[in-house]
């Protein structure tokens, strides 16, 4: 495995300022090691990919980044500040947003309300008074953010429908819109395109690029759709059985025999 760690984003001259950084992350479930000694840098202004076969530890890494799991070892920092001991809402308020592999929508709320909560939740924060009432400035910011996110994801026609009644593909878009409505400078997206068809996926990819390029946000993307990953990512990390086995640009990942062996398998021929 001499070709791991060939290149770090910090070595690349066009890497943006620090977004999400993970150092030496190890997570155990009881006796099982789900992630072991994983380091990752997701700079702002980039889409960073995180790929690996099923059970590789991608979602587990996400959960550690957003504070849902306490790592057994390692550090997580956000925009240069150590957040390893912060609770999930505090990390979100610092600007870390996420979506879930199994989608966590507010099913009984409408699409518009879902997206609105994407912004409102962080404004409510931890202050009881702020949770009770919103200020006029809040309301203006929310309205603008909701309109923009809904427009960006093209879900305006379903704004009045309840999220629980939508199809999987539509729900993915709503969850993305909700994350985009938030004041998040870094987004963790866990298999956001599963359930979308080819055309929707293409649109999806261009949304991600726009977010990164226009807003200067950073994105960490877990995806099984290799075409999408290769097209939108600036840099890619590969996990297998919780071990980091490779990282590099899409071109390098595509060429890497290690990745082929571990992950792409029979698909490798097509890539």
């Amino acid at each position, binding site marked *: 495995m001499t070709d791991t760690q060939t290149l770090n984003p910090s070595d690349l001259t066009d890497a943006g300022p620090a977004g999400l950084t993970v150092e030496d992350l190890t997570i155990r479930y009881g006796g099982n090691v789900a992630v072991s000694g994983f380091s990752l840098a997701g700079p702002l202004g980039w889409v960073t990919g995180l790929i690996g076969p099923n059970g590789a530890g991608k979602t587990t890494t996400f959960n550690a980044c957003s504070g849902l799991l306490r790592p057994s070892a390692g550090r997580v920092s956000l925009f240069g500040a150590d957040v390893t001991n912060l609770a999930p*809402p505090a990390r979100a308020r610092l600007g870390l947003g996420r979506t879930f592999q199994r989608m966590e929508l507010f099913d009984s*709320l409408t699409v518009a309300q879902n997206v609105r909560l994407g912004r409102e939740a962080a404004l409510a924060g931890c202050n009881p008074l702020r949770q009770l009432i919103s200020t006029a400035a809040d309301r203006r910011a929310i309205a603008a953010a909701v309109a923009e996110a809904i427009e960006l994801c093209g879900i305006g026609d379903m704004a009045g429908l309840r999220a629980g009644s939508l199809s999987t593909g539509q729900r993915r878009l709503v969850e993305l819109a909700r994350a985009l409505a938030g004041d998040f400078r870094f987004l963790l997206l866990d298999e956001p395109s599963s359930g979308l068809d080819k055309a929707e996926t293409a649109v999806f990819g261009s949304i991600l690029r726009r977010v990164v390029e226009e807003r200067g946000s950073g994105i960490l993307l877990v995806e099984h759709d290799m075409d999408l990953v290769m097209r939108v990512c600036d840099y890619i990390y590969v996990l297998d059985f919780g071990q980091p086995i490779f990282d590099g640009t899409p071109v390098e990942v595509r060429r890497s025999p290690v990745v082929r062996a571990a992950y792409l398998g029979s698909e490798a021929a097509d890539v």
Partner: protein
Amino acid sequence: MNDLLPFIIAGITSGSIYGLTAMGLVLSYKTSGIFNFAHGAIAAAAAYLFYTLNVEHGIAWPVAALVCVAIGGPLLGLALEFFARLLAEVPPARKVVGTVGLLLAIQGLISVIYGGDLRSTPQFLPTSRFSIGGTQVEYSQLIVVLLSTGAAVGLYLFFRSTRLGVAMRGVVDDPTLLALDATNPVRVRRAAWLISASFAAASGILIAPTLGLEPLLLTLLVVQAFGAAAIGSFSSLPLTFVGGLAVGLLSSLSTKFVLGKSGLSGLPPSIPFLVLFVVLLVMPKGRLVQAGVRARAAVRERSALPRPARLAIGAGGALALLAVPQLVGAKLPVFTNGATFVLIFLSLSLLVWTSGQVSLCHAAFAGVGAAAFGQLTTQLHVPWALALVLAGVVTVPVGAIVAIPAIRLSGLYLALATFGFGILVQRVGYPSSLLYGSGGTRAVPRPGISWLSSDTGFYYVVLAVAALACLLVWAVYHSRLGLLLRGLADSPLALSTMGTTINVTRVLVFCLSAFLAGVAGGLFGAAVGNIGGFGFGPFESLTWLTVLAVAGTSQFGAAFVAAGLLAVAPAYYPSGWNEYQTLAFGVIALIVALQLPQRYDLRGRVARAARGSAQRREASPLRARPALEGVQV
């Protein structure tokens, strides 16, 4: 030491029965994910069946016991397994409602058949005595301990030596195994429910002679197993049995220590709940993993009535309520009571339906509010209206205390903790001089202006307060907090990862809910003039939740319907119907919680039958998903 021995022996005897019950409870919970609040009701049903066979029909006790434990128990177990399978797919609050509904249904059925009076059952086991260290011990006590311990050991051997047992033990240790193909989930679950129900039946029969037969007493007292189950952290069966013994011993010994201390007489019977409450508070969160899958409610586009229609209904309803004193004659107090219940149900549905938190101690909030109102008005001479608001304010800290477990726990464990808290308030809080004192009641005046204190005037006072409460809840529902609460009900995980500290949200909603219930308590008191804690016990909390479930899940409509069903409708039933009320509420709540109408697509069938077309049945709209990525919030 010698004067302790009788208490130790009594404690071990009852403790071994608690252990037996609790093992059954934990077994079914761990294998199916459904925590059976009706477990005690099964014990009660078995005890009554035994009474009928043994005492009324003179059948020899071994035969009667065998019928109850080996036939009655398993039959009930089969039915329970079916319920549990359906309940597995509904959200946590509904799971609780489902088995609480079952509890009321069984309890209501017993009351219908046997009446609610306490009957004494003779001890069927030999009552001759022998002596241990100078203390007389009945053979019946020895037999009870041997039987219970025997059952525990039998279960242990079953787990070690049979294939089914080994599979079951695996699932109890790690519920996710149930999803694997290696075990046959249906067989494991069914067997677990059979054993669980039989254990409950056995413990009911064994404990009845010492407790006496009374539907509620048995239902709630066998639920003492909660404490034992908590000691076993709701998962370890051996520890659960030990927990049963510990609870029995603690209760019994504390009886000795509080002897003659009048203020504490409520303590010994509350020990199990104290244990439950404390364990839930201090247990590391990771140990209290919820068994079973997480599920989402079926969501369908509601065909909400158009705005003008809703306004018309609201205006018509308001006019009708204003005209009530002119229309109902002597039944007016019933409507006053109903208007007060609107407050209760508004507060409960804010908590349960809007925010997805479960409270099984709502009556305790009202009880505290009523006592506080009495004290404020009669002893501190606070003006009536101000005192009513303050009664709510005084209840707020109580709500905050209950919210502490809500911070750490969710779903089932929250329900359990609130239930334990409600019983604690009833047993220890009400008799204390802070609330109702040893006299048990407190005078509560009506407003000082004479017209307002007449029945008609007071009705309008209550109606006005209810209207204000509606406005308050409406404002909250449409405020930022309202949106957060609705989000909290659907996905606490999403809300928290988007930046809301949901513990604050939870405390807020509990405080608000407690405030409203406290105000309602004050009004209950003023309506009757003199009030005690007896109307605010844990059974009332269970009933209120059940009735609310029967009334539907909307924030406002359900509150009015529930108040009508619980407080007003009984005054208009033909005579004789009232005794079926608990049974009916329980059964309907169970049906609602199981989502039977949606499951069998009743609405669609009716519509299709009306159209006369023969379309094929749609797939069930319910969706279940596995526990989310191992994370709990």
